[in-house]
Every structure is written in structure tokens, then in C-alpha cells.
């Protein structure tokens, strides 16, 4: 059996995983990262918008501070976040941005003097101060009181990830790419590493470590339509859930984005609507003002997404080969504006749709976008339930985002949590010894080998793995999407249970020698369906609306009964997760109130009578 040893095993080499590895390595520990793809191809590279940190350098960010950032974050989360974590985060974010500058990010900088900007389709003027020249500047993002989003042109995630990986190369941290962790090695109390499948050869290897970090990113691919990369299939959450001990926090908390292009669901920026773009239906009529007379297309992400789906359900979508969609219209903004301010949108339209947005309409539909849910950790990043297991980044439920993540807060989370959790892991490693029990390692290995053997020999059946995956994705998309209600959710749970039974009967139909993409998916298909069941079941049980979790049959946010976090675990042999709950936040610095945007019906904590559904 091939075995690798390290002090810290980072499962994931996106921004979060690499930042943690950098911290541990800087403190003299041996860190090793795994990734499904070469590290710089991790999905962090796709973030274009930017990361939030209250630097307050630019004119529109004047007067910003961690306090204001804190308030925006807690409100954004609809009071679902852990407020201690939010506080820690906002205080650290400015330092993290400066650290990244020191390591080489070419952040855009303040240019003194007058310039113009668009808001709600109108043009305004601002003046940047001379004394701030050359400091890191920021742009506007939804849900924030100040301009706080630091950026590098249209490639913030790209430059962050390249700079972070440069640091990894500098420190000599090894990244084993095309490697997939398929289970955690643990004895019910302590985590000792992971069983890893080599995606070049198909071979299994044991990676043993004193500390193991899950930093596998989001898992949008359990939905049919998502802005996420194709590798975002949830392996990190799956291996945690498979322990039977480690919980997934708030599985039902899933964010959608209104404008994914059809058919590939590549994101086109909010900037289109911010600058005055409109949404049209099959008759090329603008429909948002009908639903949201005041804000129209500029209402928050969830609200716009919801009305879009509602309008499609009314039969007013445009029929196409890939299902019904709506149109995004930016033609009236004119060639000059599109070519300068919305360049990446023009490129996406040209390259992936073959259309010209200056003269043509863009087909769009809401798509899954962000996973607030994740491996539940404490504020140090230590996972609940297993000693030596940690999580950070989108894969974790640290819980900064509660039921809704603010744009720009997730890139920031990766580097901030990476820094904090990295420091905590270094502390943990000092003087920590673990005995790697050979029997435990062997058992884990044998179990995975057997699992694979059953799949390739079609011992349990010959269900087509792609069909199972598609059925699961349809179920989540159609019934556990943007609007939710008890009837549909119950149906989704029932159907997913059936799909789960079928997933147990998957068999490999092709030549599986070597890397085999079919086998790669088949190994995690049961886990994916279990994850899907956590999402659907968590959503069914949460009989309120909060942030992105919008129940048509329970429209109010219910702080009396639901100011809490779902914790889903999976007991071996069960067909449904076990749900427990904990208070959303132990410390409450900002008491629940109105967010100041979106519709809000609130049942407050001290209300006596229970509201009718």
C-alpha cells in the first residue's frame, strides 16, 4: 500500500486550501495539498467581481469600517450567521487584502479626480481624493452600504489564486493534482487522513496526516443548472457526511443567481442590470416592474431570481432547445458602454453563445450559484465531531454567510478563514502526536477497494450513473430550487429516496482501466444523492423563509422558532439524514431586525401566538 505522510493534509488547493497550507508551511510544518485539477484551475479562479474588505480608500467607501461591514454581513445572512465569526472576519479582512498585495496582487488603485459611474441605469459623478492616490480601491456590490469590493479588473479570483499558488511554489509546498479524496480515515474520534484515488491511474493511496483540512469548495453540481465548475460535485461534504459523525451545517441554504446564460449557465455579471439592463419575456415585454414597482431589475438576487421563475411558470418564458428562458437586454446601453464597461459580458456572449449583445438579446435563466452549507466547524475551523479534522472556504459552514452570502464576501472568506484556520491548525499541531492505527487504515482502504470492485463488476446492478445523476439534479432543480413549498419538497424527498436506492445499483459500463471518468462519478454518486437528500429534507423541515430559503407556504422569517442552524448527519444504513439544531449565534451583537431590502414578514422571538401557514 502506497502511503504519504504529512503534518497537514489539505484536501483542496483552491484559495482556502492553499492559504491554510501556506500558513502551516510558514510555521515549519509539512503541508501537502490535493486537488482534482492543477491548483490554478480550481474554481476560485472563476470569481471575477472582487473581495470585500473595509479599507475605506475610495470616495464611495469613505467612512467604511469593520463595523459597517459587520452589519452588512449579518443583515445579508438574514441573521443566520455566527456573529462571533462575522466579527473576526471583518476585522481580519483588511489585513488579508494587504497581505495579498504584499505577495503580488495587482489590485486596482485609487485614481484621483472626477469620474462617472452608473447606478440603476443613471449616470453619476464622484471625485477621488488626491491623498488616497495609489491605495487599493473598491467597487460597489449588492447588499453593501459602502463600496468595499477590492478587485483586479475582471479577474480577481484569477489573480488571487495565481498569487497564492506562487506562494505555495515559493514555500515548496507539494500539490498532488488529479487526486481525489474518496473517504476520511478515522476511528470515530480522530481523523488521520484520507483514502485518495489517483485520477491519472485509478490507483488508491493512503494519505496520513496529523491534521486534515476539507477545502473542496462549493457543490453546485448537485443541481442541474449552476454557475459552478464541473468539478464542484461535493466530494468534501460527502466524505465528511460519510463519517456518520461530522454534520453538514444548513444544507438547505443554497444561493441562486438570476443571470446564468442558457445553455451553459455561465454567469453574466450583476453589472448588466446595475447599469440599466432589463429583463424581457417571450413577448419581449419588460416584466420586473410589474412585480417590483420600485426596484424592478435591481431588487436583490433572490428576489429577481424568484420572479423570473414565477414568470416562466406563468408560461411567459421563451421556449428553447434547453428549456424555457428569459431575455437579458443591454442593447440600449450602446456599443461604447458595452465595449468598455461590460467587456467580459460581450466576450461571454460572443464566445459561448455566438451572439452580439449590442444588437441581440441574451438568453438567461437563474442558476444555482453558492453553497452556504458545508462541513460545520467552530470559529477555529475545527470540524464538529472528529479531532484533527478542519474545514475552510466554501466547503465549510464556519458560518459567515448564514442563509445568504453577500457578493464579495466569499473570496474574502477564503483568504481570511485560510489565515485564521491556518494559525489555529499550527497551534494544534504543536506538540500534537497521533498514532496512525494500521488496522483502521487497512479497514478504510479495504472498504473503498471493495466499493470499487462491486462497481466495476456490476455486482449490485447496472444502473447508468449519468441517468441517476440527472434524475437527482432534476429533482433539486425543479422542487428544491428558488421557490419551495411543503408539497414539492415532500415529493422531492420521496423521489430522492427512490433515486438513492437506484444509486446503490450502479454498475460501470465502459473500460474502467486507468482514470475512468465513469468510475470517478460512480464512486461518489451515492454520496451525492445523500447530500441532495440533506438539502431537500433540511428545506422541508425548515418551516419559515430566511435569506435564500424561500417557502411559499411559510413566508415569514420566524425568529421565535427558527433562529437556528440545521445540523445534518447521516447514520450508516439510513435512507434519510438525522437533523439536529443549534442556535444560529451564541453571541448576538446585532439583534434580529429588518434587512431593509426584499420583502420582510417577521415573526419576532418574543411573539406568543403561532402564525397560520
Amino acid at each position, binding site marked *: 500500500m502506497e502511503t504519504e505522510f504529512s503534518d497537514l493534509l489539505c484536501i483542496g488547493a483552491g484559495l482556502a486550501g492553499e492559504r491554510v497550507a501556506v500558513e502551516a508551511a510558514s510555521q515549519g510544518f509539512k503541508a501537502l495539498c490535493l486537488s482534482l*485539477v*492543477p491548483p*490554478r*484551475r*480550481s*474554481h476560485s479562479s*472563476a470569481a471575477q467581481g472582487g473581495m470585500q474588505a473595509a479599507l475605506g480608500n475610495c470616495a464611495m467607501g469613505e467612512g467604511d469600517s469593520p463595523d459597517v461591514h459587520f452589519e452588512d454581513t449579518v443583515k445579508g445572512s438574514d441573521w443566520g450567521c455566527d456573529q462571533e465569526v462575522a466579527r473576526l472576519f471583518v476585522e481580519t479582512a483588511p*489585513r488579508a*487584502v*494587504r*497581505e495579498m*498585495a*504584499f505577495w*503580488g496582487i*495587482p*489590485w*486596482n*488603485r485609487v*485614481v484621483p479626480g472626477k469620474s462617472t459611474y452608473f447606478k440603476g441605469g443613471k449616470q453619476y459623478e464622484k471625485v477621488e481624493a488626491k491623498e488616497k*492616490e*495609489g*491605495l487599493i*480601491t473598491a467597487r460597489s456590490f449588492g447588499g453593501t452600504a459602502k463600496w468595499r469590493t477590492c478587485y*483586479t*479588473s475582471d*479577474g480577481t479570483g*484569477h*489573480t488571487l489564486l*495565481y498569487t497564492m*499558488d*506562487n506562494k505555495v*511554489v*515559493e514555500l515548496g509546498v507539494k500539490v498532488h*493534482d*488529479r487526486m481525489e479524496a474518496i473517504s476520511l480515515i478515522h476511528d470515530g474520534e480522530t481523523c488521520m487522513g484520507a483514502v485518495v484515488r489517483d485520477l*491519472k*491511474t485509478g490507483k488508491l493511496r493512503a494519505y496520513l496526516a496529523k491534521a486534515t483540512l476539507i477545502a473542496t469548495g462549493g457543490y453546485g453540481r448537485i443541481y442541474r443548472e449552476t454557475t459552478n*465548475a*464541473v*468539478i464542484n460535485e461535493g466530494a468534501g461534504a460527502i466524505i465528511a457526511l460519510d463519517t456518520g459523525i461530522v454534520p453538514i451545517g444548513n444544507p438547505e441554504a443554497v444561493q441562486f443567481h438570476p443571470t446564468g446564460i*442558457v*445553455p*451553459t449557465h*455561465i454567469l453574466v455579471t450583476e453589472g448588466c442590470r446595475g447599469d440599466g439592463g432589463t429583463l424581457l419575456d417571450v413577448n419581449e415585454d419588460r416584466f420586473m416592474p410589474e412585480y417590483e414597482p420600485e426596484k424592478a431589475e435591481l431588487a436583490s438576487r433572490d428576489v429577481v431570481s424568484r420572479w423570473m421563475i414565477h414568470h416562466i411558470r406563468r408560461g411567459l418564458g421563451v421556449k428553447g*432547445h434547453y428549456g424555457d428562458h428569459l431575455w437579458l437586454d443591454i442593447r440600449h446601453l450602446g456599443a461604447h458602454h458595452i465595449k468598455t464597461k461590460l467587456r467580459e459580458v460581450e*466576450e*461571454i456572449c460572443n*464566445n*459561448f*453563445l*455566438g451572439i452580439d449583445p449590442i444588437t441581440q438579446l441574451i438568453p438567461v435563466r437563474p442558476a444555482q450559484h453558492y453553497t452556504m452549507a458545508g462541513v460545520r466547524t467552530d470559529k477555529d475551523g475545527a470540524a464538529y465531531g472528529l479531532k484533527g479534522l478542519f474545514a475552510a472556504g466554501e466547503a465549510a459552514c464556519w458560518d459567515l454567510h448564514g442563509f445568504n452570502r453577500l457578493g464579495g464576501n466569499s473570496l474574502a472568506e477564503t483568504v481570511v478563514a485560510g489565515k485564521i484556520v491556518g494559525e489555529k491548525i499550527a497551534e494544534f499541531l504543536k506538540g500534537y502526536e497521533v498514532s496512525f492505527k494500521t488496522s483502521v487504515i487497512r479497514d478504510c482502504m479495504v472498504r473503498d477497494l471493495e466499493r470499487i470492485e462491486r462497481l466495476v463488476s456490476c455486482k449490485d446492478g447496472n444502473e447508468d450513473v*449519468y441517468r441517476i445523476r440527472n434524475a437527482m439534479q432534476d429533482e433539486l432543480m425543479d422542487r428544491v430550487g428558488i421557490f419551495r413549498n411543503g408539497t414539492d419538497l415532500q415529493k422531492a424527498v420521496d423521489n430522492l429516496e427512490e433515486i438513492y436506492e437506484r444509486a446503490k445499483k450502479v454498475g460501470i*459500463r465502459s*473500460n474502467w*482501466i*486507468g*482514470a*475512468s*471518468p*465513469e468510475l470517478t462519478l460512480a464512486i461518489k454518486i451515492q454520496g451525492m444523492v445523500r447530500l441532495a437528500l440533506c438539502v431537500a429534507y433540511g428545506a422541508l423541515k425548515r418551516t419559515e423563509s430566511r435569506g435564500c430559503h424561500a417557502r411559499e407556504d411559510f413566508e415569514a422569517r420566524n425568529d421565535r422558532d427558527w433562529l437556528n442552524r440545521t445540523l445534518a448527519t447521516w447514520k450508516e444504513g439510513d435512507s434519510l439524514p438525522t437533523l439536529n439544531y443549534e442556535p444560529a449565534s451564541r453571541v448576538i451583537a446585532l439583534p434580529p431586525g429588518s434587512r431593509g431590502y426584499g420583502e420582510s414578514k417577521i415573526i419576532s422571538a418574543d411573539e406568543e401566538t403561532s402564525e397560520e401557514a
Partner: protein
Amino acid sequence: MGRNLKFNIFRYNPLDSRSVPHTDSFSLEETDSMTLFIALTRIREEQDPSLQFDFCCRAGICGSCAMVINGRPGLACKTLTRELPDEITLMPLPVFKLIGDLSVDTGTWFRAMNEKVGSWIHTDKTLDPDAHEERMDNALAEEIYELERCVECGCCVASCGTANMREDFVGAVALNRIARFMLDPRDQRKEREYFEVIGTDEGIFGCMGLLACEDVCPKELPLQDQLGILRRKMGWSAVKHLFRFG
């Protein structure tokens, strides 16, 4: 009804002793806005689940999906089938080690490249976490970003005559990376130190200047300009170098 497309795809699984390099053909009906990402995914899921290829972001951002498309290296996810004839031939990128079918190992190559050119800010300063960041002119930040846009897809390497002939040639991508750091005032390396990395036949003097690299770069990086600037600087530096040590 869309066109009927015929795909001729290179097949070889080096781990399977029975496998020999050959071409398999698949046909598929074209749909609206079909990209090679959509087409290949459908072929795998509907016709041959063993077909190997790499996609990640499917949005032209991550550089995973470079392959040779009708003779020309490019990003498959960013290629619309309607820009191609009815018959589409797909081959893996040359130069890089083959994993199987259309999948090649770019990770190992690029890690080695990054180590070789020292792709990080070399400085003896330490960071004061509570101080303001060092100021930088926005125009310079944007200039650095222009060169930092490279996605390490490998198209320039695959199309390069020198890289195809000699394994140790660093490629346009590495030369562009050096140019990026030379622009950056935070990197304290001296010209001489850059010269040691690329002022050789493995580096800038191995380049024949035919510029296939710039032609195929999906990010349209100004490789030609960068190679020119480096060649001039390095030529000059070489003279100084010889003078000083020769």
C-alpha cells in the same frame, strides 16, 4: 434540425495494455450555441463513458480544456461548433504527457515552469500587517494584470516549434511570466538574475520568433511584444554579463 456533426477523436489509454492509439468517430446532431464542452459531454454520457477529456470552468477561465481542434490548439469550451465544419477532428495537446485520449498532464509541466522561473515576488522586506499597503500607480497595476491574465492552458507551448523539438525550452508562457515580474516594482530581482533564468537557449535565445504562440493564445496576450522586449533586454544584459565576468 441541426447539422449532423462527425467527430474524429484520438483515443489511447496508456494504462491499458490492449489499447493502441487510434481514432474513433462519433456523430451528433448540432444544437443551438453548442460548444465543444456540450458536444464532448454528450458523447461521453450518451455514447462512450470511457472517453477522457478535461473541462473545469467551461467558461474559458481556468485553462483546463486546451486540445488540438482541426489542427489548431485552442480552448474547447470556448469553441462553438457552428464555427467549425461538419467534420471535427480532436487531438490531445503535444509536448505534454498524455494521460488518456484528449487529456494531458499540464499540472506537472506548469509547476516545474513556475519553479524554474521563480514565479513569485522576490523581496527581503517583511510585511507590517497594520500599516497601509504600499502605493502603486493604477496604470501600472493594470499593466501587470494584462500579463497576469495567462491561464496556463499550454496552447502557446503546443504550437511552438522549439518546444516541440527541445524538451527543456521554457516556452512563451514562461517568458511572459518573467516579463510580468520585471514590470513589478515589488520584485527586487536584478536584471542579471532574470537573465540567469532565461538568457539561454532554453529561454529567450531558443525562440525562433515565428509567433505561433501569440496566434493561438486564447487570452490574446501580447506575447510578441514581450518576447521582443525580453530579447532586447537580455541581449543587452548578455553583453554586460560577458563584459563583467568574461
